[in-house]
């Protein structure tokens, strides 16, 4: 997608996979498989994760591959 001009950011559940595969921008989240945005029925937490991912798009000093922890 990046090669076709679409800016991407990926949620990542396994840090070691992101380190090996190297997507352009990844946000590692400390949640179990099946729960990439945290918990069901908790929109505030889901928004917090998405917001952290979107912020990676706005930091123009970052260089690929980007891997940042959600805190």
């Amino acid at each position, binding site marked *: 997608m990046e090669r*076709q001009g679409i800016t991407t950011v990926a949620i*990542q559940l396994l840090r070691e996979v992101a380190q090996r595969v190297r997507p352009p921008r990844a946000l590692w989240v400390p949640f*179990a498989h099946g729960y990439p945005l945290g918990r069901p029925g908790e929109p505030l937490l889901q928004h917090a994760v998405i917001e952290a991912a979107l912020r990676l798009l706005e930091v123009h000093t970052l260089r690929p591959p980007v891997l940042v922890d959600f805190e």
Partner: protein
Amino acid sequence: MGSMDEFSLALRLFLKAYRWRRIDPVPWTALDASLSQCRLALVSSAGFVVPGQLPFDDAVRGGDVSFRDIPSAIDVRDLIDTHRSQSFDHSGVRQDPNLAFPIDRVRELAQRGRIGSVNHRHLSFMGSITAPGRLVRDTGPAMARQLRADGVDVALLVPV
């Protein structure tokens, strides 16, 4: 926390020996515009389909590399989990598909102006693809062309 320890011994051994594809060089499209002017699409590997679509096929050797368009107007409660993997707990995404397909959340972002707009469709495929050659060669570029034709600026990639 997402960890290999969640998986069965057999899967952990498989993953330990698995030859992950390394992206090199890493492609990069900087975001030139403000997010408040950008169109966003979701790309989820959680295997969701909408009523009337074929479920993902767990009989395809190496993994089903097809994808489905998910209309943006879908009611999130209508999303159907067809992911074949038994290596994760499906109860969360079945209770609230926003967990892996956050369509309500991105609509809310557009309503408050954090993003410019939500694309009229999103893309869904099923992860657990152990032979990703066709995914990389065919499916990924086809998905990208589709979103590009829609005028999408930003894709949020969500696993499960």
